């Protein structure tokens, strides 16, 4: 009997593993499948295998300890060598700060995975570890193999790895979505007041309710939606192709800079976790930054700079100052001394962050000021180092519709085609730190199967792709559908129950007086008390 630990981070590895199991696995062999978050939602047909994630091998103390390392690495990832830091400063904007969110997710998922993998090797004591040759899982296994004294590693050949799209904004899906948004924004612009004196730049991306429209209708400002600017450039091939003319040169420059950085003493000494060098694991991200993100950032900095010069705005309003485009806007505003306001777009939580002074998407604050939903949120920001004078309590424009509109739940249910069935809504959260959203939806589907009087609507987060959820729903034996773009408040109002793990949707449901069920993976690990609270 051979005991295998299969470590996977992609569909390709799962396919290779299935082939291996079919051809080579003996009847009495045992296989434990450890899935990296990059492979969440992929199904493996491996009879007799046990599916695990890193959370199965981590306790709360370890999670807290890992958070400390995450907060050391995320804000400093580009600062371990002064020369490199200088080389990615462009027109006064530090490009290293821009992919903060992506770097954060990378370290959060990979540090947990590395520790979980080490623990899994110790606990399972496998005879053979199976993994992909040029994959994130494979790099993780290589990183910990020596320290954990892995007996045999067997690598799958995975063929050509994923390449980055040449024109990321010109995929059919993006162009089609962009056209729809553009036509909506243009129709609103057609009703704009003329003779306005001052221009306000706004980036709301659907998170700020009717703010943009009311700002246009009720004030004398010329309201310029930055989304429009972005969309026009994205769908116009002549403009969209422009940055790519310069792309090769920029890619070369950044690739050189990253290569030197990887060799620097600072990088080699600091990219260490649990006593093992993790720089090789970070290689994939650096490659992505050099070939795709950083050339695009340079082009965005140039274009936004030119836009500020042309339109001379008196104010910038953004839904968040955390994601690259909006962050570039805020940093450009600062450069030109144009005041900026970030408006809270969702709930932010977690006492665990208090020590770090870091709340993903909310603090540290880059914009001059921020408008928050209530005094409790102001307090959390102040606790995390934001000066009280920069915070204004206004309430949430997005939530206004909850109080100001008349809902017709029965009509809404008819439109969805669910008739008199009881509507159950399950909202997902990909950014949650303790949850695998696909596993959660699978569990919910299994439960709803037992309630034939129910109809489940799976509501993925706006940034998620829906394909994997649709596959899960198709396989399930219950009344269910996936709805990402819908009238959320009408949906929640019509619901008999709302199921979430960590989502502002739960908060909105509470305000609509709908019963909310919070799924907690492990009460001890997640810190949930079981009482209503900020998630």
């Amino acid at each position, binding site marked *: 009997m051979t005991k295998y630990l299969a470590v996977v981070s992609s569909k390709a590895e799962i396919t290779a593993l299935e082939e291996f199991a079919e051809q080579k696995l003996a009847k009495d062999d045992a296989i434990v499948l450890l899935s990296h978050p990059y492979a969440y939602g992929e199904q493996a047909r491996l009879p007799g295998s046990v599916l695990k994630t890193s959370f199965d091998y981590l306790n709360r103390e370890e999670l807290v300890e890992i958070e400390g390392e995450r907060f050391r690495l995320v804000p400093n990832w580009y600062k371990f060598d002064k020369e490199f830091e200088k080389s990615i400063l462009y027109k006064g904007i530090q490009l290293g700060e821009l992919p903060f969110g992506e770097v954060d997710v990378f370290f959060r998922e990979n540090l947990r995975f590395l520790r979980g993998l080490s623990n899994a090797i110790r606990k399972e004591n496998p005879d053979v570890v199976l993994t992909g040759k040029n994959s994130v899982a494979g790099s993780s296994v290589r990183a910990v193999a020596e320290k954990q004294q892995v007996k045999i590693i067997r690598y799958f050949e995975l063929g050509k790895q994923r390449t980055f799209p040449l024109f990321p904004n010109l995929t059919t899906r993006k162009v089609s979505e962009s056209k729809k948004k553009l036509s909506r924004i243009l129709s609103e612009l057609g009703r704009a007041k003329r003779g306005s004196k001052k221009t306000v730049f706004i980036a709301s991306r659907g998170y700020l309710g009717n703010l943009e429209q009311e700002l246009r209708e009720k004030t004398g400002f010329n309201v310029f939606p930055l989304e429009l600017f972005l969309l026009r450039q994205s769908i116009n091939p002549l403009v969209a192709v422009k940055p790519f003319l310069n792309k090769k040169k920029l890619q070369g420059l950044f690739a050189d800079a990253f290569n030197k950085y990887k060799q620097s003493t600072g990088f080699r000494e600091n990219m260490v976790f649990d006593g093992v060098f993790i720089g090789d694991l970070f290689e994939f991200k650096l490659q992505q930054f050099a070939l795709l993100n950083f050339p695009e950032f340079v082009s965005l900095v140039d274009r936004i700079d030119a836009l500020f010069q042309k339109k001379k705005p008196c104010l910038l309003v953004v839904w968040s100052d955390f994601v690259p485009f909006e962050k570039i806007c805020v940093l450009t505003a600062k450069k030109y001394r144009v005041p900026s306001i970030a408006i809270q777009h969702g709930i932010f939580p977690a006492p665990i962050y208090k020590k770090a002074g870091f709340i993903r998407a909310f603090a540290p604050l880059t914009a001059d000021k921020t408008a928050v*939903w209530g005094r409790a949120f102001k307090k959390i920001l102040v606790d995390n180092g934001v000066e009280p004078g920069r915070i204004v309590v206004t309430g949430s*424009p997005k939530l206004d519709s909850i109080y100001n509109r008349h809902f017709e739940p029965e009509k809404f249910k008819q439109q969805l085609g669910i008739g008199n069935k009881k509507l159950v809504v399950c909202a997902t959260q990909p950014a949650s730190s303790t949850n695998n959203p696909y596993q959660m939806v699978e569990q919910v589907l299994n439960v709803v199967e037992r309630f034939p009087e129910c109809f489940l609507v799976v509501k993925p987060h706006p940034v998620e792709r829906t394909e994997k959820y649709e596959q899960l729903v198709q396989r399930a034996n219950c009344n269910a559908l996936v709805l990402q773009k819908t009238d959320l408040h009408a949906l929640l109002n019509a619901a008999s129950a709302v199921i979430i793990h960590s989502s502002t949707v739960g908060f909105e449901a509470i305000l609509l007086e709908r019963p909310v069920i919070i799924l907690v993976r492990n009460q001890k690990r997640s810190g949930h008390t079981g009482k209503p609270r900020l998630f």
Partner: protein
Amino acid sequence: MSSCLASVLQGKKLNELKKEMRKFSLERNICGDGKATERVIKFIENTAKKTGKIELKTK
């Protein structure tokens, strides 16, 4: 989860839940009066008023 969903669907403890929810939103001091957009617009107007003429000179 199954028993929890069953009890919610039967409406058990719903009034109690609603009371908890109201308390919860009050505790969080949410400005739940439907006038947030108005307040944000006022905040924007006040901030923009102070801006004056934009010269777009870098620091």
